[in-house]
């Protein structure tokens, strides 16, 4: 069995990803042409109307050819093609990723165990696996399906899905038991219980997602589509019903000769369709699905897989963010920051005892004590012979060393104090005060004692990651409440919460507490986002509106959440929220832009149609466009070009800076509302200056 060599398919391709390379357009062109098929295009009512209009004017141009008519026809078709191009470009990027993923999946064989502990297996195709099957995978082999390790431990290369080349450890039991189909075991041998249905593996879903194959429209997208359809109908009615009015106007002005825009039968078909296409919201109609696909794509670029677009949209709406303290708000480990001796004990003595007790302690806290002793007190690590190491257990809640007749312990205050009393020691009240003081400041106190004598307290400090306070301030401005979840006692939790700047905290949190908190927030109408990795997080992940499972987590967690972060970086949640918001803002901004554009188009087309019968209407030609034909053509050309011009914006998303809703709205209104009104005046005028030199334009 040869494992396919995988390049890094999902490596971050840079955040600028939306900048459009002309080559992308070219590559996407065939797809764009295929999408002209009315059977697929009708799902986009705006562009469907454009296509019908283009087809209709083509017939008219064939029947009564003129340069003007053909120019309009060409640009109407281009309008439809540009719209499809936007979608095809957006999809194209996903397709490339899907192709590499697909290679990881094909042809994998599986060795299915005949019974739980048997050594015999059958070799079958990976696609025949059912949930509950046990398969054995050895070094060098591809894991045939998603599941949990039930026996053994192995290092696994997950670069196929994460793009991260460093191998990860997967072992039975605990929270690192999940393996993903398509990844490769590098060492050892594991037995995996399959959890997926055939064809629904993680990789399968990923492929479907990045390809946008069965992309479901999200609620906001559906709502926006309805609004766009309604606007299209309004403009359809407005242009269609104009015809009898135009006929009448021509009739009562019999002295006015026929023009290319208006004759006795009313406004000519070509011009009428031009007006319609210019008025209906083609800009947003063309870019709407590209915006959605690109939004998912931006998540993928950040190595986050959303199981549905709905989840991405929900991320924008989140008003409560549950963040685990450890790893998200603070660096994973607490570090020794101070040795506080009790009265009568020298700092050096305490430091030495603390160091001794921690020499064999491989936990990060233990190592930090040794480091602190070395850096602060110059105590070097010693090689001790005959030392008897006492390891930490959940029962004793302390660790230490027995050496040369000394018994040194460090650990939780209650445990160590109990141990001291047991030996007849009577710890001074001072110890209690020191312990409480450290707790109150957000630190974790470790009491160090030598048999019946308390030496002092080690101050372990949670180190809040740099820049967290600023991020939480941003969140607050965005209207998002951050809640820190921690197993610490309330005192410690509060101190850290204050230092990090979160709005609230949940201390001594059990999974049940977490679930209850989510429910409470949701009852108040708030949307909740959280991250989780353990099996015991699964209910909360399932309950939350945006549940981001860490890729290192269990299958249960991944199943329960609606996103998976392949980097297993809990702070990613903040970026996910921003991407969700950016997605909605882009839609809103382009809708506004699209509608605002119509104002200028009226000023171009209405005088072009009717100034012949009512010369006074030429006063509306404030752009002073050179002729009716060039005015109409310029409007149509602008309408088509603006789609292409905005493809990069649609793919990249509009710039998003966290700010209050009011300020965001003001800014976007100025740029896309006011800009949307002004831009076409300039654009149409410039195009008119160029097209006026074409034949048949006067």
């Amino acid at each position, binding site marked *: 069995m040869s494992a396919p060599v995988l390049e890094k398919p999902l490596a971050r391709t840079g955040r600028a990803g939306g900048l459009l390379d002309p080559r992308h357009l070219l590559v996407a062109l065939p797809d764009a042409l295929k999408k002209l098929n009315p059977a697929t295009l009708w799902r986009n009512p705006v562009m469907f109307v454009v296509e019908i209009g283009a087809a209709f004017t083509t017939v008219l141009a064939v029947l009564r050819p003129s340069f003007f008519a053909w120019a309009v026809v060409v640009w109407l078709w281009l309008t439809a093609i540009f719209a499809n191009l936007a979608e095809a470009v957006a999809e194209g990027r996903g397709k490339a990723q899907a192709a590499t993923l697909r290679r990881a999946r094909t042809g994998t064989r599986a060795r299915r165990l005949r019974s739980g502990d048997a050594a015999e297996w059958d070799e079958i195709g990976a696609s025949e696996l059912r949930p509950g099957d046990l398969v054995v995978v050895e070094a060098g082999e591809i894991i045939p399906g998603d599941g949990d390790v039930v026996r053994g431990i192995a290092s696994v290369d997950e670069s196929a899905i994460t793009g991260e080349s460093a191998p990860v450890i997967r072992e039975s039991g605990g929270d690192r038991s999940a393996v993903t189909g398509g990844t490769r075991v590098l060492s050892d041998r594991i037995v995996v219980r399959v959890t997926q249905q055939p064809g629904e593996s993680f990789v399968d879903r990923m492929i479907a997602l990045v390809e946008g194959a069965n992309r479901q429209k999200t609620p906001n997208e559906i709502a926006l589509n309805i609004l766009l359809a309604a606007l299209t109908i309004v403009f359809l009615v407005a242009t269609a019903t104009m015809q009898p009015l135009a006929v009448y106007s021509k009739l009562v*002005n019999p*002295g006015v000769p026929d023009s290319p825009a208006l004759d006795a039968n009313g406004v000519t078909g070509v011009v009428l369709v031009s007006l319609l296409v210019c008025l209906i919201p083609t800009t947003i109609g063309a870019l709407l699905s590209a915006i959605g696909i690109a939004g998912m794509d931006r998540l993928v670029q950040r190595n986050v897989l959303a199981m549905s677009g709905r989840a991405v949209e929900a991320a924008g709406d989140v008003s409560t963010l549950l963040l685990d303290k450890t790893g998200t708000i603070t660096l994973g480990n607490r570090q020794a920051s101070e040795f506080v001796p009790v009265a009568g004990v020298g700092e050096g003595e305490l430091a030495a005892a603390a160091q001794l007790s921690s020499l064999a302690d491989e936990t990060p806290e233990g190592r930090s004590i040794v480091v602190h002793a070395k850096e602060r007190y110059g105590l070097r690590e010693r090689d001790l012979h005959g030392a008897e190491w006492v390891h930490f257990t959940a029962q004793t809640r302390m660790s230490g060393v027995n050496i040369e007749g000394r018994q040194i312990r460090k650990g939780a205050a209650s445990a160590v104090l109990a141990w001291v009393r047991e030996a007849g020691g009577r710890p001074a009240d001072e110890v209690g005060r020191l312990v409480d003081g450290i707790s109150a400041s957000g630190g974790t106190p470790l009491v160090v004692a030598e048999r019946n004598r308390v030496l002092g307290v080690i101050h372990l400090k949670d180190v809040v990651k740099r820049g967290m306070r600023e991020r939480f301030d941003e969140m607050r401005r965005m209207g998002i409440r951050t809640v820190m979840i921690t197993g610490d006692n309330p005192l410690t939790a509060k101190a850290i919460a204050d230092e990090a700047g979160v709005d609230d905290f949940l201390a001594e949190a059990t999974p049940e507490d977490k679930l209850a908190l989510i429910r409470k927030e949701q009852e108040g109408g708030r949307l909740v986002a959280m991250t989780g990795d353990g099996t015991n997080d699964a209910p909360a992940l399932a309950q939350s509106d945006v549940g981001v499972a860490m890729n290192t987590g269990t299958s249960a967690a991944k199943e329960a959440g609606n996103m998976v972060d392949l980097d297993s970086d809990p702070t990613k949640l903040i970026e996910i929220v921003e991407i969700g918001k950016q997605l909605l803002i882009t839609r809103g901004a382009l809708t506004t832009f699209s509608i605002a554009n119509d104002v200028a188009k009226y000023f171009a087309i209405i005088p072009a149609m009717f100034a012949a019968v009512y010369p006074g209407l030429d006063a509306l030609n404030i752009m002073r466009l050179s002729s009716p034909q060039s005015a109409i053509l310029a409007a149509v050309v602008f309408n088509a070009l603006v789609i292409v011009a905005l493809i990069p914006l649609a793919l990249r998303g509009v710039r998003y800076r966290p700010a209050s809703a009011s300020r965001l709205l003001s800014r976007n209104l100025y740029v896309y509302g006011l800009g949307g009104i002004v831009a076409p005046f300039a654009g149409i005028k410039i195009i008119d200056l160029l097209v006026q030199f074409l034949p048949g334009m006067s």
Partner: protein
Amino acid sequence: MQRLPAWLRPHLAAIRAVAVLTVLLGLIYPLTVTGLAQVLFHGSANGSLVGGDAGSALIGQSFTDARGVPVGKYFQSRPSAAGDGYDPTATGASNLGPEDVVDILPGPGEPGRQSLLTRVCARSKAAGELEGVSGARPYCTPGGAGAVLKVFPGHAVSVNQPCPTVPFVATYQGLRVECGRPGVDYAAGRTVPVRGDAGAPAVPADAVTASGSGLDPHISVAYADLQAPRVARERGIALERVRTLVAEHTAGRVLGFIGEPAVNVLELNLALDRS
């Protein structure tokens, strides 16, 4: 009742509701108001009749003789579009638009139709003649028709001046101006109203326009002032006396800003008759 199909139940309630509310709002309410109004405000509730049944103080009248000629001793009301003039059983306005400037000239089998502009011009001319002032207005021909040209490539036509009337201008931008021939369709020409050189008209606006109701009981102070010398002359009384009566029957703006100053014509004429 309980066994009725669900769709029918609201209809029964609706029938009851319409019946009950009709009695309450359509009979009890208006009859109570009528009763109270008759007791509290007998005069106004019954139409504010004045002058021993000579009319209503609120409803304008025509002060013309049987042939429609203004009776000189009376102040004249505004033009009216209500029936044949001030007919309370056919109230209403002319409803002619602000650019209604082209007449349909009368001809064989065609009664013709005066445009609003021509009506204004004709009224202005008539009022000017009656009061002995100039009836000239902008956009009017000296003959009291709308001064409107239809311009064609080779010539122009003064469409409201039927041949053989001499057009109010001989040429327009070098084009020869012809008189209008009844029955000829001039629709293809470009419509050009010609302002002319008339200054501020002597005949006020309300004298040349029909009111909305057709029953406007008032005229403007300016129109009353215009008519006062003629009335004084016809009646052989001092102009000052007439002016005093006009002032007495002029209602100013309520609180200084509501409405426009207006002279009640019927009450003024009644007062003149009494004096």
